[in-house]
Structures are given as structure tokens and as C-alpha cells.
């Protein structure tokens, strides 16, 4: 099995485990699902550090976009806490 297939399978399995576990515990906040999926993506991409340079560049670009989404969620949560809503 090629390293790319292993990477994709790791991502799919991790997402399945995260979504199933959160659903099992009755979690109903979509932002939590989103942030945990993004963290899993960033962690797994970091573990596959030996992918070829072009693949890493492309994944880093996507990672930046996803991280920006993650930061938006964090900022919204902080604003919510500070405004006391």
C-alpha cells in the first residue's frame, strides 16, 4: 500500500472515531466536531513528515486554510465568553 493511501486511510479512520465518539457522548455542538477534525488533520499530516516535498507543500497550504477556520471558531468562542452570552 502506498504512503499516500496509508495517509488517507489514517485520516478517514481518525475522523470516523472522532465523529462516532462525540455522537456517542451526545455532543451537539458542530464547532467542536469541526475543531477536533481539524486538529486530527494537522496532527496526522505532521506525522507523515516524510511525504515528498510537493505533497507537503500542498498539504501545508490546505492546513493553513483549515487552521484559519479553526482560529475563527476560537475567536468566536472567546468573544462569546467575554461578552458573557
Amino acid at each position, binding site marked *: *500500500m*502506498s*504512503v*499516500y493511501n496509508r*495517509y*488517507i486511510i489514517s*485520516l*478517514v479512520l481518525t*475522523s*470516523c472515531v*472522532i*465523529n462516532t465518539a*462525540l*455522537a456517542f457522548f451526545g*455532543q*451537539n*455542538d*458542530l464547532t467542536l*466536531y*469541526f475543531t477536533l*477534525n*481539524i486538529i486530527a*488533520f494537522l496532527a496526522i499530516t505532521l506525522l*507523515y513528515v*516524510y*511525504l*515528498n*516535498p*510537493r*505533497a507537503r*507543500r*500542498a*498539504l501545508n*497550504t*490546505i492546513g493553513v486554510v*483549515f487552521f484559519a477556520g479553526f482560529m475563527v471558531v476560537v475567536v468566536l468562542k472567546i468573544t462569546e465568553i467575554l461578552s458573557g452570552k
Partner: protein
Amino acid sequence: MRSRPYKLFGIALCAAGAIFTPISYFVIASVPLAAVGLSAIIIGFTCIALANTRPYLSPEACQLMLRTGMENTAALIEELGLRNRAIYLPSKTRGGRPQALIPLAEDRQIQWVKENIPGRLIVRYGRDADDMAIAVTTPGSINIDMLETKPGPTADEIQAAATYILVGVLDIARSVNVNLADRQVGIEVNGARLGYEDIWYYRCLGSPIASILAAISSEALGKPIRIKEETFNKGKDHIVLEVLP
């Protein structure tokens, strides 16, 4: 094209996720199902990114070029009747490009020349008049350029560089383990897709995987290296490299 399945899979996942997420969230009012849609979008984008990084050349074209180069070198070695094992030299002794030397004389104690070995086909590498060899470029010589930084002289650094080249860049093995002992480097390659064959070329220069590992080890240790032993069994390639003084 190898990239096509990734692209199709990625587009399908993104499209499915983009349709499924709003329906699950607003119509069905199920957050877990909407999360599944979001995950599909994330994985879909990842697949599309990977599709764009796959090689432009088909594996068959790459194999054709590898075989052409190997058969030309093999013809030269066979015509000259060379049976000695090649010595892999670090780039510093060959003016920036690591190469392998196939000595013309039988194995013996080598007294290396102090200056750089000239960049020619037939070269003198030792102090003795009979210390002549043929300098050839091997798959390992080319792969050294793919390393972002030169590995250091430890087993961990050699293993990291070998894993990067064999698993990440070339995708021809599953994992690499390196043990560095006194003047010997023991390497085990798991899931190797280019095995050892008992042919003249491999007996001289080693298999392409052994050649790459010898070139990396030579560069890392800054010393000449010879492939001492290579065995291939059920996808496991066991290679022993000898570090020459």
C-alpha cells in the same frame, strides 16, 4: 495517470460533503451527520491536493528509463569482466556528485589518494599504479540531490534520510531501520518493492535500494562505503554496508 483516482475521489467527497452538510444541519437537524459531511469535505480537499503532487510520468515510463540506464552500465561492466563490489564515495571526494567506483583490480587494501578523484569514467583512486576503477553514476547518486539537508553521522539521521527518500519521495518501501555498529551499517527495509536479483549488475553495484542506502550512508558518514551483503526475502531487504577507512 495515478493522480486521477485521487482527484475523482476528492471531488466526489467534496461534492457529497457540500450537499450533505447543509441538509443534515438545517433539514434533518442532526449535528453528528453534519459533522460527517464536514469530515468528507476535509478529506476531499486533502485528496485533491495529493492528486496534484503525483508524478507526471507513468511508472512504466520511469521503469523504462531505469532499465535503459541499468542495462547500459551492465553491458559496460560485463564487457570489462568486472566482478568487484562497487565502492560508494561521498560527494566531497568527487567534486560535489556522489558516485560509485568499480575497482578494476581484485579486492585489496586501498590507500586512497589525498586529492579529489577526477570526474572521468576511468579514474585512479589509490596510490598504487594498479588502483584504477570505473566511476559510474547510480540511482543513489541522483537521490542525494533530493535530500533537503545532508544527514549527520548517526543511525537516526541516516534512518530519517533513508525513510524520506525510500518511503516519502520514491514510495518503494514501507519502512527502514538502520543500525550503526563498528565499521558496519545494518539496514532492514520492510515492504521493499524493488528486490535483489542475482544478476551481474546487482552483484557489482547492489540493487537500486541498496545503492540508494549506500549513497546516503556514505554521504552521512563522509566515508567510502561498500555493499557487503544483501538478502531479499518476502518483501524484506536486509543490507549490510561496510564502512571503508
